[in-house]
């Protein structure tokens, strides 16, 4: 598997939105003064009458999107993850999820891989916060191809969705003809020494670790969990049964994210030891994305240290 071509999932999002806009007139896009960073500007340039810049008011943006959804529009609402899931949590909860409205919250700049902006802009709790909301489906795609699939597929789901996207350009993992299914994890490899459950920008890191481990005669499989909720219990349990070691890795707090979700499934269905890699109950900091992944031990090297 070559991992040399890189693209940020926010870029894939912006480009896919433009394609979707052509197919479906009901798709509208809202942003909160970050369209150049979230890449919704790509849609805005093509469809200015279906793009709404709400200014720096994320709470207003979420509830406005809810109002749009009551009239049959399919709003995609975007800002940084810290402002979407964090600042507008109550609006997402009460105006979108409780009434089960058809709003697609696409949050970019998740995790420490935001980089230089530092802790205030590095959302590490969003998977945890979004996962507990009834009616909401939660996605965390790992590369360009998977992001395009999810952005398109959620337009066909009648209900609220949260998609976690990254600022950092990361390797393209899948062939453009790869088939995906909502709620179904992608298993890469069949190694039985360990399963590495990974999501978002950490999937490529897990794949790098997989190759390096093979050179040492250790054979692992990587499971890319792009749908955090509903989670693919079946694959998680199957892998726990088939492999000796279970590892999770994510650019998110070790509390309540992918690691938490995997532990919930396994503790109820097939109790085994789980090693969680993630940000350990601390805030992020400024630095280069790659430096931060190393510092917070959410890169390939951190996985190797577990063997």
């Amino acid at each position, binding site marked *: 598997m070559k991992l040399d071509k890189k693209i940020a999932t926010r870029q894939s999002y912006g480009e896919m939105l433009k394609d979707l806009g052509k197919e479906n007139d009901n798709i509208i896009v809202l942003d909160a003064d970050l369209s150049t960073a979230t890449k919704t500007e790509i849609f805005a340039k093509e469809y200015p009458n279906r793009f709404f810049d*709400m200014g720096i008011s994320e*709470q207003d943006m979420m509830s406005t999107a809810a109002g749009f959804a009551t009239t*049959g529009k399919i709003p995609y609402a975007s800002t940084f993850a810290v402002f979407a899931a964090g600042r507008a949590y109550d609006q997402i909860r009460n105006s979108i999820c409780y009434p089960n409205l058809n709003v697609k919250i696409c949050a970019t700049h998740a995790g420490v891989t935001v980089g230089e902006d530092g802790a205030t802009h590095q959302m590490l709790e969003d998977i945890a916060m979004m996962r507990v909301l009834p009616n909401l489906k939660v996605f965390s795609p790992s590369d360009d191809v998977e992001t395009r699939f999810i952005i398109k597929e959620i337009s066909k789901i009648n209900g609220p969705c949260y998609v976690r996207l990254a600022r950092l350009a990361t390797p393209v993992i899948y062939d453009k003809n790869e088939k995906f299914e909502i709620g179904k994890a992608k298993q890469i490899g069949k190694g039985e020494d360990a399963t590495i459950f990974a999501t978002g920008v950490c999937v490529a890191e897990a794949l790098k670790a997989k190759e390096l481990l093979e050179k040492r005669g250790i054979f692992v499989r990587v499971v890319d969990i792009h749908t955090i909720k509903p989670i693919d219990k079946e694959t998680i349990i199957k892998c726990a049964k088939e492999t000796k070691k279970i590892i999770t890795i994510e650019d998110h707090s070790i509390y309540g994210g992918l690691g938490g979700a995997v532990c919930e499934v396994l503790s109820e269905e097939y109790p085994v030891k789980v090693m969680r890699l993630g940000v350990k109950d601390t805030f992020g900091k400024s630095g280069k994305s790659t430096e931060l992944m190393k510092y917070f031990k959410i890169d390939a090297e951190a996985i190797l240290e577990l063997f």
Partner: protein
Amino acid sequence: MKVTKIEALEKIANDIRINIIKTVYNAGSGHPGGSLSCADILTVLYFNQMNINPQDPKAEGRDRFVLSKGHCSPALYSTLARRGYFREEDLKGFRKINSNLQGHPDMNKVPGVDMTTGSLGQGLSAANGMAISSKMDSMGYRVYCLLGDGEIQEGQVWEAAMTSSKYKLDNLCVIVDNNNLQIDGDIKSVKGLNKIEQKFESFGFNVISIDGNNIEQLIDGFDRAKMTKGRPTAIIAKTVKGKGVSFMENNVVWHGMAPKEEEYKLAINELESNGK
């Protein structure tokens, strides 16, 4: 004797007030004060102004109403029942486990409820989304949004006000139920906004000040809002909290308390004696 249009609407508002008291009494909890203050506003909207059909509550081209101050659900439910969206009998289930009439309005459970509300400050944003949608698709429907005067302490209301103005939503009419009281007391002493009219004016609204417990003034206000082009309207409706039940009027304890049996009888007697 011929009953005038105004008198007929006053009678309906009184019926709605009776049902507000009955509904809150049966539930043993709820918010009578703010419900009574906005009963005339809802009466004029649902029986005189809005283009709606209770037999087709989801009609695409209907006018919309967002009760941003969702705790005044007894007023909304009593109005919807009186207008024929569901049986008045159902009001007895308010706040009870097997009823669709939740403490705060749920659009998926109650016919005629256009938006789920409850967490204050969010309704105007949702109303904006509906109003922009109406304009995008040239649907021509109007959107009404009722805010509490305590509620406008929420910052999101002003984020939304900027949006209403930016998109020149002349099909949007905001009503502020200006009864001057909130849970902790007089609004001025809790955290006064000062000069509500000027605030909305500076946000780009056409502002209309009226007595919000006066049917004739309400009709006139909504008619003027309809004729306004190029900007949204805010009707600042001066009301009396607890209006119609003398011992509840201007008394903040009735914000969120149900009457006991004696109080209930007194209130119903007073309302039923109106117009006799």
